[in-house]
């Protein structure tokens, strides 16, 4: 028994020490699932000696984390919510970094014929007309907000759909898993789709409408509200993210030969 106690306390006391600069950045699931963060973070560590700890959440939660001061900066993609965040004084400014695009995924057989649609809105109208199963993120994320915006542009109210419309309230990967299991249509960002490992019978059916472009922006949390925010490190990271080095890393990042992100910081 005494040996047991000694062993337990030894394990408990063996805590890892942390050193160097550390900041917390809330990012969206789509950014992380794309794998781009695995390329950028080691370079940031190397160039700035800065360890960026990523909190991978939906845009809704990312903004909430910034509002509460639990992170130092956020990297999200939902213009309206970002503008509101700034208007309420929770962030100092908004810096556009890069964009990728949303794509329509669905069963290979394409029962709603959306691959022949001429716009994103038309594709959604076809899905609604066919009452084909459709998985919605339903988690207040940037992707979910985009989807809801498209439904209202199509003069349809997602709140009134019946059985074929399934709001799963989950992240991109989990929602894709659900769609794969039900052979349903879903809107995904291209990066998450390309990196997704459980595609099943799903295929990319429609893409390319400019309304599907997905702008990522970097928003530092306001240090006037939260004095513990590491503004210097946040500024360092921002200048790195808009540098030429970041540009080439982002523009050349490819999965299966496809470019995912386009750098457009000014």
């Amino acid at each position, binding site marked *: 028994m005494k040996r047991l106690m000694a062993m337990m306390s030894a394990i408990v006391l063996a805590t890892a020490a942390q050193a160097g600069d550390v900041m917390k950045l809330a990012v969206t699931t789509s950014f992380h699932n794309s794998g781009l963060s695995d390329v950028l973070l080691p370079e940031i560590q190397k160039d700035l000696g800065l360890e960026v700890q990523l909190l*991978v959440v939906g845009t809704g939660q990312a903004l909430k984390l910034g509002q509460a001061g639990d992170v130092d900066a956020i990297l999200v993609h939902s213009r309206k919510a970002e503008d509101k965040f700034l208007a309420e004084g929770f962030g100092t400014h908004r810096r556009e970094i890069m964009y990728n695009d949303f794509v329509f995924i669905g069963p290979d057989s394409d029962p709603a014929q959306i691959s022949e649609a001429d716009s994103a809105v038309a594709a959604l109208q076809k899905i609604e007309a066919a009452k084909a199963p459709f998985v919605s993120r339903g988690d207040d994320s940037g992707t979910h907000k985009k989807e809801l915006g498209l439904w209202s542009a199509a003069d349809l109210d997602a709140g009134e759909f019946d059985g074929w419309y399934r709001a799963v309230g989950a992240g991109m990967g989990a929602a894709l898993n659900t769609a794969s299991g039900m052979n349903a249509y879903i809107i995904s960002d291209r990066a998450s789709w390309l990196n997704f490992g459980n595609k099943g019978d799903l295929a990319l059916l429609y893409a390319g409408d400019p309304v599907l472009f997905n702008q990522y922006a970097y928003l530092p949390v306001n240090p006037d509200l939260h004095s513990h925010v590491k503004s210097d490190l946040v500024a360092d990271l921002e200048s790195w993210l808009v540098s030429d080095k970041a540009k080439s890393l982002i523009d050349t990042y490819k999965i299966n030969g496809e470019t995912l992100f386009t750098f457009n910081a000014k």
Partner: protein
Amino acid sequence: MTDLWDGISRAIWMVLSLDANLLEITLRSLQVTLTALVVASAIALPLAAFLSVRRFRLRRSVIALLNALMGLPPVVVGLVVYILLSRSGPLGVLGLLFTPTAMVIAQVIIIVPLIASIAHQSLRDLWAEYHDLLISMNVSQWQKITTLLWDARRALLTAALAGFGRAIGEVGAIMIVGGNIDNATRVLTTAIALETGKGDFALALGLGFVLIALAVLVNLAIHWLGRTEREGRW
């Protein structure tokens, strides 16, 4: 079915190649859960002994409450701890959110009722046997509690192991308060949730088998170190 085999072979491969990432998150899982277990036992075991030897008016209600709280939903515990530790919450100045300490706090809250309830069951039975003897020896309340705890140590080990089991496999609360940050708060269960989200079922399952093996190993080690099933009754 192929996913299952992939998972098993992935698990074996990761263990054999001593994958650095795997080692790190496994050690963190152990560290968080064992710390939580030690803290929770330090609270729950004396509490259980106190409830056995002391008669007071609300005793039955406290016991019933502890029993009910064994089913405390982790995700709710996580949310409450999150709100308390958030920078905009009452304990925000401590800056503990998204650290292993926050995960320990959540796990302690989850397993204290479980350990206390199970420990109380065995301590109560032992107290029924010891009652007359200890009363006749006119010992103090504190001596009663320590005697009970020491003589029931094997049964208490079972209570602690039940707590360990619940904590090591827990994902809901530590995902919320830890944030699943790579190299900082990622543990086995949250890594499994992440890989499932990415659709990499083989890796997720591989991590799952490692987690199960870890739980078995820790249980065996504790039984061996505590020499259960070898000496006399206690």
